[in-house]
């Protein structure tokens, strides 16, 4: 079912394309050796190249190129063997050179595609138009002084990948799914940490609306959409705004708008007429970038298993549901944790324990998986205790939080607390006999046809044995005694 918005005059379709700026994970900047450390004191991560001192020249960081190629491969995209750096000219105090070195006509990565995951296990393919390399600008700070602005150049010159999608996205949910999936892929590849709060991933959203079957409408570009929530809200707001204008007899102006997360509105930054003339031209300080096929092949060999491949493998190899597989592959380390637990064990049981218990308790404690006090080996050992009937699943759920609190192994806790399952049929029989003796009325009722009372007897036995009796043995023995 297509996502449609009901307006006064009928239904409207939404068309969205996204431009994602992703800061490349690298120790130094795109064209200088300066550090890229986030959160350092202002203007301490700045080389004389980044500050555009007279006579300074850019030198391309090969590692950043490798990261862009790796990302392109992860997006199933064409890698262009020749690409060209161009200058995008405009004045702003946090742009020291007076131009940004970017790629324009000849990006390093061409067309690709990714799959996004939607409600109900549905999958949709979104086209990637291109990926290009460019420098980040610095940061202007306007709120520290009544009449002065300050500039922090720490970010100036950091390497960005601008990833442009085709206008294949048709709802806020798809946009969120696209951004989430892209972020997941970049994190898997290790090419961007995807941290939207720190600004290492930023989204511009191009939105237009149209009546189903019509050609593309005029779009507005929404900037500063810097969280998944903001993507959802900004699109909702912008779609409503555009429909209201068109239905009111107005026209959409092609313009750049800014998302204001506090007020929950988009507002105009500049119209097409006011748009900068960036005067792009090839940067004469940099030669065209030529990359060799075997170099690309070498990078391809180092690619990790990507989220979609992993998901399909988890479904096929472990028999997991698409939902469980999706949860487990969302983070690369989570999937690895699961696989360590599942190794040589029942994978569905392992998945349940990782998803429901471990992720649950980590989430409750706002703790990252990497900081989990329970290791994969420890969780596996707990599952082993269930499998070999040392403890019941129920007891295991009591042991688990103790493991989390103490960091102790399951076996040790079971030992210390005397939680070992009772499998000695003689001992269980004795308990059953005493319960039957103590409840003659219920025994009579059960034997008279009240089958449901069986559960009462099980409960009594478990209570008496503090849950340690083997449930299967209890069932068998009870049946024998009661039905005798």
């Amino acid at each position, binding site marked *: 079912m297509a996502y449609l918005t009901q307006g006064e005059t009928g239904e409207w379709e939404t068309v969205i394309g996204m431009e994602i700026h992703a800061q490349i994970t690298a120790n130094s900047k795109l064209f200088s050796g300066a550090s890229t450390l986030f959160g350092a004191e202002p203007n301490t991560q700045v080389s004389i190249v980044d500050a*555009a001192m007279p006579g300074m020249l850019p030198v391309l960081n090969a590692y950043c190129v490798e990261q862009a190629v790796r990302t392109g491969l992860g997006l199933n995209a064409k890698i262009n063997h020749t690409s060209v750096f161009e200058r995008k000219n405009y004045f702003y105090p946090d742009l020291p050179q007076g131009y940004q070195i970017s790629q324009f006509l000849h990006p390093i990565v061409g067309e690709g595609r990714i799959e996004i995951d939607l409600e109900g296990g549905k999958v949709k393919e979104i086209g990637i138009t291109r990926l290009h390399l460019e420098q980040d600008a610095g940061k202007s700070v306007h709120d520290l002084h009544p009449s002065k602005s300050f500039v922090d150049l720490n970010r100036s010159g950091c390497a960005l990948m601008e990833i442009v999608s085709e206008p294949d996205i048709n709802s806020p949910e798809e946009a969120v799914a696209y951004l989430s999936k892209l972020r997941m892929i970049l994190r898997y590849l290790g090419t961007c940490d995807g941290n939207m709060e720190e600004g290492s991933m930023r989204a511009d959203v191009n939105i237009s609306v149209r009546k189903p079957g019509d050609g593309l409408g005029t779009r507005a570009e929404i900037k500063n959409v810097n969280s998944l929530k903001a993507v959802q809200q900004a699109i909702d707001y912008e779609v409503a705004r555009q429909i209201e204008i068109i239905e009111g007899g107005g026209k959409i102006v092609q313009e750049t708008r800014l998302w204001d997360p506090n007020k929950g509105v988009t507002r105009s930054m500049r119209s097409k007429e006011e748009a900068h003339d960036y005067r792009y031209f090839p940067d*004469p300080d940099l030669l065209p970038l030529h990359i060799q096929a075997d170099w690309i092949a070498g990078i391809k060999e180092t690619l990790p298993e990507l989220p979609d491949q992993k998901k399909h493998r988890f479904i096929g190899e472990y028999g997991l549901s698409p939902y469980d597989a999706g949860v487990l592959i969302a983070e690369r380390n989570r999937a690895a944790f699961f696989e360590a637990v599942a190794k040589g064990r029942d994978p569905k049981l392992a998945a349940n324990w990782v998803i429901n218990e471990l992720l649950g308790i980590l989430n409750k404690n706002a703790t990252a998986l990497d900081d989990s006090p329970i290791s994969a080996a420890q969780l596996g050992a707990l599952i082993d205790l269930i499998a070999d009937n040392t403890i019941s699943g129920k007891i295991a759920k009591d042991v688990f939080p103790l493991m989390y609190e103490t960091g102790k192994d399951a076996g040790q806790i079971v030992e210390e607390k005397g939680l070992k399952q009772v499998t000695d049929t003689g001992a269980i029989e004795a308990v059953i006999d005493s319960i039957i003796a103590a409840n003659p009325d219920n025994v009579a009722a059960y034997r008279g046809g009240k089958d449901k009372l069986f559960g009462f007897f099980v409960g009594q036995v478990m209570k008496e044995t503090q849950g340690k009796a083997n449930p299967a043995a209890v069932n068998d023995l009870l049946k024998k005694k009661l039905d005798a």
Partner: protein
Amino acid sequence: MTALTHLSIAAALDALEKKEFSARELTQAHIEAMESRRELNAYIIETPDIALSQADNSDKRRAKGDKAGLLEGIPLAIKDLFCTDNVQTTAASNILKGFIPPYESTVTRKLFDDGAVMLGKANLDQFAMGSSNTTSAFGNVINPWRGDDGRDLVPGGSSGGSAAAVAARIAMGATATDTGGSIRQPAAFCGLAGIKPTYGRCSRWGVIAFASSLDHPGPIARTVEDCALMLRSMSGHDPMDSTSAQRDVPDFAAALTGDLRGLKIGIPKEYRLDGIPAEIDTVWEQGIAWLKDAGAEIVDITLPHTKHALPTYYIIAPAEASSNLARYDGVRYGHRSAEASTLSEMYSKTRAEGFGEEVKRRIMIGTYVLSAGYYDAYYIKAQKVRRLILNDFTAAYEKCDAILTPTAPSAAFPIGENEDDPLKMYLNDVFTVTANLAGVPAMSVPAGLDARGLPLGLQILGRAWDEETVFKVAGVIERSAKFETLPQMLRKAA
């Protein structure tokens, strides 16, 4: 005795080696000469303390018996486009007045590593834009040569301060840069040798950019051999400049054999222009005869796109300049207008106050040719013509090993001339810009005097990376021309 300041670099190196005098004495002689010829305005700042300290260090190295550097103890002028560590560097513009870089350009670092001594920062046309050294914010430079009418002449540009200093014997050699002829034309106007090497031979790192794809650092000196010695020191791959080439640096001076047998010298018919003084043609013909005498074969060649070179140059160079000079915005260093109250005013007033007229003109031309709607018609077309000009040279070098042309369409002209008409001023570059567009090496060497007693230069162009042939041919012209005349001011002094 011959004044120390009149020696060639080669002769001074020899004498220093033989301990006939010290680097300090050599430097001191130059410092005194500089003080006596300040009316030329060749230097923006003089750095005698640095010079003497470098000279003393050089003397110490020699005393210790250390291996002498290629330019051990040789006092030089440094064009004020080269950033010098802790020494004001201005590009002769108010926008950089007082700017002190905390870094040393690769070329000057190499020179100093080889023992050279810095006498001061030489004046130039503002941001190297000009052919007369009249666009400097620090005043124009006067050519030590004077015509028979006694009027003050321009030294040429943009490396006018460098050329005037070397000609006036207040530097033994000078660094210079050549974007459209800025080494060769002032060398010709001041009776000196100057070479623009192959693009990528000398690092541009730390040289204030005018037009990145056309800017070539190189030397100006009084002899071809001195240029060869300086260029060897200035050259070499620099990982900090992505356009710097990974090429071995030859011993250029070793190419000065005087023997041109087996060499073919091309004479391009397109360089015979209407309206050029007959004396230019005469000296060109004389040069051809000298080369023939030295065993070269003279061949007629064609460089058919030459007539498009000047307009092509005046699109590409301003386009790159408009972007390269965007960094002078008053935010981080250099001049910032005191009159501005908004960001936009800060930009416009800072740049209006900081840049000179010629710089503003070229920024505007460059901005225009890169603008949406004009880019294809100007910039892209110019790049295509640039390729055709390179193809012209490639084809020509299948027929010859080097090319001989005049350096400039006139001798030095009086200060103030051509100022009213930028196009006329731009014509000075008509013979020189092709080599910048093609990136091939080109050298000017003094070949004679015109009727007024002013020097005229001839230009030798070579194949990319074949500066050795250029030096070899230039050496023959130099030897044949026996150019020994001194500028008038030095004759009086002598």
